[in-house]
């Protein structure tokens, strides 16, 4: 194909194009996709953190031996520890080191926290082989025979509000993604309708020359797909950079809780596919809008 023919072959694609360069639609798509990807990244990272927290807390217990007399406390602790290690379903039972407890108390009690006469309960960390409720209930029931001084705390129960917040954030992010997708489709529908109105005369000529509705719709589809692709690439890249930057900052905090708010490999792939999904969504929305509108024209 000659150069002139090549240049002319693009004419059909330009039948509706009057303005060159970046169009408003491109910017709208870039902004929409940028915000959507941030929301999606928040949702994916929070969901990942919630899953990590679940894994870390599920089937973990702390057994407290609340006894003021150090001798009786240590004796009870040893008996409970032996009992736990003999119990089926207990994967691991480790007494919490006294020095670790002192260090934990230091911010509140200062140097007094190190006083050996301080009636601090003995603690045993327990990992259950089974993360279900039944195993934890069985262990708690078995330990009840050691008397009222034995208390069993499930880690899940005191971290559940945090987990609830994380799940709420995940659902909020998902809702935002769906909302942004709906808004994008609505913007495309409005743009397509405006385009139809702007190009009514040209479309009339196309129809009289024997164009089918799908041929006319394809002209709009191509244009909107191009705008969406340019906007999607721009907005998507900007969002990925921001997400990566926030990830580095969170990692730098060294926080165990926030350290879990990271994106895995599949999360990055899902984010990278969002622009593609938006282009497909915009193209379909344009096609459906145009074909429906053209049905009312002879």
């Amino acid at each position, binding site marked *: 194909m000659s150069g*002139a*023919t090549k240049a*002319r072959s693009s004419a059909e694609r*330009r039948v509706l194009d009057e303005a060159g360069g970046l169009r408003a639609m491109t910017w709208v798509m870039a902004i929409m996709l940028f915000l959507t990807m941030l929301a999606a990244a928040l949702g994916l990272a929070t969901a990942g953190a919630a899953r990590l927290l679940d894994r870390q807390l599920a089937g973990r217990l702390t057994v407290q031996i609340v006894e003021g007399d150090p001798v009786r406390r240590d004796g009870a602790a040893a008996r409970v520890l032996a009992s736990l290690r003999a119990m089926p379903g207990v994967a691991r039972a480790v007494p919490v080191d006294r020095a670790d407890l002192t260090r934990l108390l230091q911010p509140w009690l200062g140097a007094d926290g190190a006083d050996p006469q301080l009636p601090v309960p003995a603690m045993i960390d327990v990992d259950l082989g089974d993360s279900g409720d039944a195993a934890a209930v069985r262990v708690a029931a078995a330990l009840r025979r050691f008397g009222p001084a034995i208390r069993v705390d499930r880690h899940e129960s005191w971290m559940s509000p945090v987990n609830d917040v994380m799940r709420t954030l995940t659902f909020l992010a998902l809702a935002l993604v769906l909302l942004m997708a709906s808004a994008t489709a609505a913007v495309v529908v409005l743009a397509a309708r405006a385009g139809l109105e702007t190009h009514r005369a*040209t479309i*009339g000529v*196309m129809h009289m*020359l024997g164009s*089918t509705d799908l041929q006319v719709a394809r002209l709009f589809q191509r244009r909107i797909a191009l705008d969406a692709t340019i906007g999607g690439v721009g907005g998507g890249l900007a969002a990925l950079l921001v997400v990566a930057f926030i990830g580095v900052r969170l990692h730098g905090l060294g926080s165990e809780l926030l350290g879990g708010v990271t994106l895995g490999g599949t999360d990055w792939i899902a984010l990278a596919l969002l622009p593609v999904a938006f282009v497909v969504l915009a193209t379909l929305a344009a096609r459906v809008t145009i074909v429906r509108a053209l049905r009312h024209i*002879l």
Partner: protein
Amino acid sequence: MANIVQFENVGLRYGTGPDAGPETLSDVSFTLRSGAFYFLTGASGAGKTSLLKLLYLAQRPTRGVIRLFGEDAVVLSRDRLPGFRRRIGVVFQDFRLVPHLSTWDNIALPLRVAGMPEADIEQPVREMLAWVGLGDRADARPATLSGGEQQRVAIARAVIARPEILVADEPTGNVDPDMAERLLHLFESLNKLGTTVVVATHDFHLLGRIPGAQMMRLDRGRLLDPTGSLRYPPTRPDS
């Protein structure tokens, strides 16, 4: 020659219900034969453009029967309209060129619409440009063309796909007499290739220029002289 178009008691009224206006066309009946040349005359507002719109399927009649290429065009499904329209070339009164496309691309549009491969488009467009004398204006946009040049682009676009019927609405209305005659010769040469030509005009000077052409005369929506009943040169309606 076979009949290519048949109108039977066709009526057209714009608007519906309480908004409906008077009948623009009333009881119009005529037959067009394949390969013939027809003039459609009548004063402004007589209904020429409305009749042409029915002919090139831009409008459906309110009543009556229209048979086009042997099929009932009134009940033709919307999906089949493009196929029929590709067999009809139209030169609009106001040209209706696509303003942001070049002369070349405007003329090539029907071929692209018909799905012709790009490699096959170049030669017919080049020939058509030469035929209408616009070989040196291929890259010009419509806004930079004179009225006569735009008219010739519109004609080239209408005929490039070799339609079976060519419909032209006042094609000489915006050009000087010399250009009008040249355009008419373009239609005549196309007609000689077998295309049925229908030219709507109120320019009575043109009517005698095509030997063998037949005339239909509209007056306030009614066809006074069904095809072939008048001899040319015709009598002016007001004489």
